[in-house]
């Protein structure tokens, strides 16, 4: 920014058109979120009118042809799969980040990081394909049928691990070297330093990574679709097949009509609300970390 806000009146004609052109484009970008919410609401409205919010939690089951729209089995499936995956991915993700930053010799740290970056870019269908062909039969041998909550948890864990690792590692790398020098001069050993000084200092970055990971796990569709079995039931056991909210939408929206279609939009809205909460919290932590470093 070169000019003060009072001086923003441009003297050139081209500047005038540029400003308005840019404002228009920015408006399009900024209104996307609003548009999405509006369209989702519009499409869900018939369901709210005819079915009512309470039915989604109290109907007898998910049978659209009989006008029964119970969402709770899918909700449980989503929540359990995401919870399981974050419980695995949090320690291992933070451990990987610590490994890259403090344990790995330099010739290993860079390739390991590249491997994680590579995996962050692998499409979910490819994870799903691998899960379908390798993981599910493996689980089936242990305990049939194979497609299960466990498969979902493991696949999600592999998918959110790179996100957590990379965000936490970036945060660790930003810790000023003076903190390390001070802690070393006090006679702290590597693990003591990591446990008592470094991880607390990087707290904001760690939470950013974890919340982004949860948001990703909640929203994952394709891989879950391919390995979870898609049976509408609340999971009572790790080996039960489940259907998540996302898989539910993906499977049925192509042929759903009328109220059925609306209810799928409602579940989309519900999903979006859950995820937005986590994303907003993650961004909040990200800003807190950025402010801490500019002090």
């Amino acid at each position, binding site marked *: 920014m070169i000019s003060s806000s009072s001086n923003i009146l441009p003297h050139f004609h081209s500047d005038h058109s540029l400003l308005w052109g840019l404002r228009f484009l920015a408006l399009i970008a900024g209104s996307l979120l609003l548009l999405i919410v509006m369209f989702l609401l519009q499409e869900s409205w018939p369901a709210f009118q005819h079915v009512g919010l309470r039915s989604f939690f109290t109907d007898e089951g998910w049978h659209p042809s009989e006008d029964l729209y119970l969402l709770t089995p899918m909700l449980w499936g989503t929540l359990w799969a995401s919870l399981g995956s974050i419980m695995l991915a949090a320690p291992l993700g933070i451990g990987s980040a610590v490994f890259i930053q403090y344990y790995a010799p330099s010739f290993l740290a860079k390739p390991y990081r590249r491997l994680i970056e590579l995996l962050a870019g692998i499409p979910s269908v490819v994870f799903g394909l691998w899960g379908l062909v390798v993981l599910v039969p493996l689980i089936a041998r242990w305990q049939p049928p194979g497609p299960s909550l466990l498969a979902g948890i493991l696949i999600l864990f592999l998918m959110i691990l790179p996100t957590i690792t990379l965000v936490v590692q970036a945060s660790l790398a930003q810790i000023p070297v003076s903190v390390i020098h001070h802690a070393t*001069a006090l006679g702290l050993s590597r693990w003591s330093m990591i446990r008592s000084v470094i991880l607390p200092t990087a707290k904001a970055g760690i939470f950013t990574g974890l919340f982004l990971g949860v948001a990703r796990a909640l929203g994952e569709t394709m891989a879950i679709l391919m390995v979870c079995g898609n049976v509408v039931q609340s999971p009572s056991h790790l080996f039960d097949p489940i259907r998540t909210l996302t898989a539910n939408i993906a499977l049925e929206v192509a042929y759903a009509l009328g109220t059925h279609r609306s209810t799928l939009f409602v579940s989309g809205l519900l999903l979006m609300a859950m995820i937005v909460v986590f994303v907003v919290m993650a961004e909040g932590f990200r800003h807190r970390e950025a402010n801490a470093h500019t002090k």
Partner: protein
Amino acid sequence: MDHAQPTPHLREAEKQLSGIQSWRPYQSAQPCCEPIAHIRAEDLSIGYHDHLALQHVNLQINKGCITALVGPSGCGKTSFLMSLNRLTDLIPGCRVSGRLQMNELDVLAPTTDLLHLRRQVGMIFQKPTVFPFSIKKNLELPLREHGKHPRETWAAMIETTFQQVGLWDEVKDRLSQPAQALSGGQQQRLCLARALILSPQVLLLDEPCSALDPISSGIIEDLIVSLRGRYTVIIVTHNLAQARRMADHVALFWSVDGINQLIETGSAQSLFESPQHELTAAYISGARG
């Protein structure tokens, strides 16, 4: 030169702790410059990757004295200081050769217990870095990691140390508040307290006042002078007036033909009044550097 006297409230705190074995009671002012070598560097050289930062340093630091390392910036003073507690291990590509003896401990030996060494040697850096915890926790951390003092004694030790650095009145009501809210001068005193709470034998100070305003500088200087006799203090400074005010011994570092070396060392009085080397004379008179 005046020696610091322990104040009445310090004596009181001392009485509280006299039952605890490992806490060193304050000695009343002692003559400092006993010519007993505490640290001995023989033919010490430090290199980074492929260039030599410091060459052939032979220096003896006496117990209980304040030794100032002076010279223009970039002449290897900080490198020498960092080799004393093996902080040079953290710098990639840094190699230290020669002999470095601290009492009976061979500092440079690969088998030396570095954690033990760094608890004997405290270090203060140019820019104070407090940990992002409460004021109290900043001091509890070294105590907890050291593991030698029972938890019940911590509060008293923390109070004594804060009083020693003159910070107690300013922080006693806000021990649980974040340390990062303190001013620059207060943070540097906190760093000093953090280093002192482990009762080190040696204190290394790398230009501790250069990032502070003049008033805080003065307070820190007085504090350092008050440590004479109880700790062996080595301070790096490029402020000659400060060295003149504080030091018992002075060592001048200089870059000769691109290689940093120790030019002259001696008691402060002899170095400032009758320097032997022409570079020393030129530096002191302000003609060079």
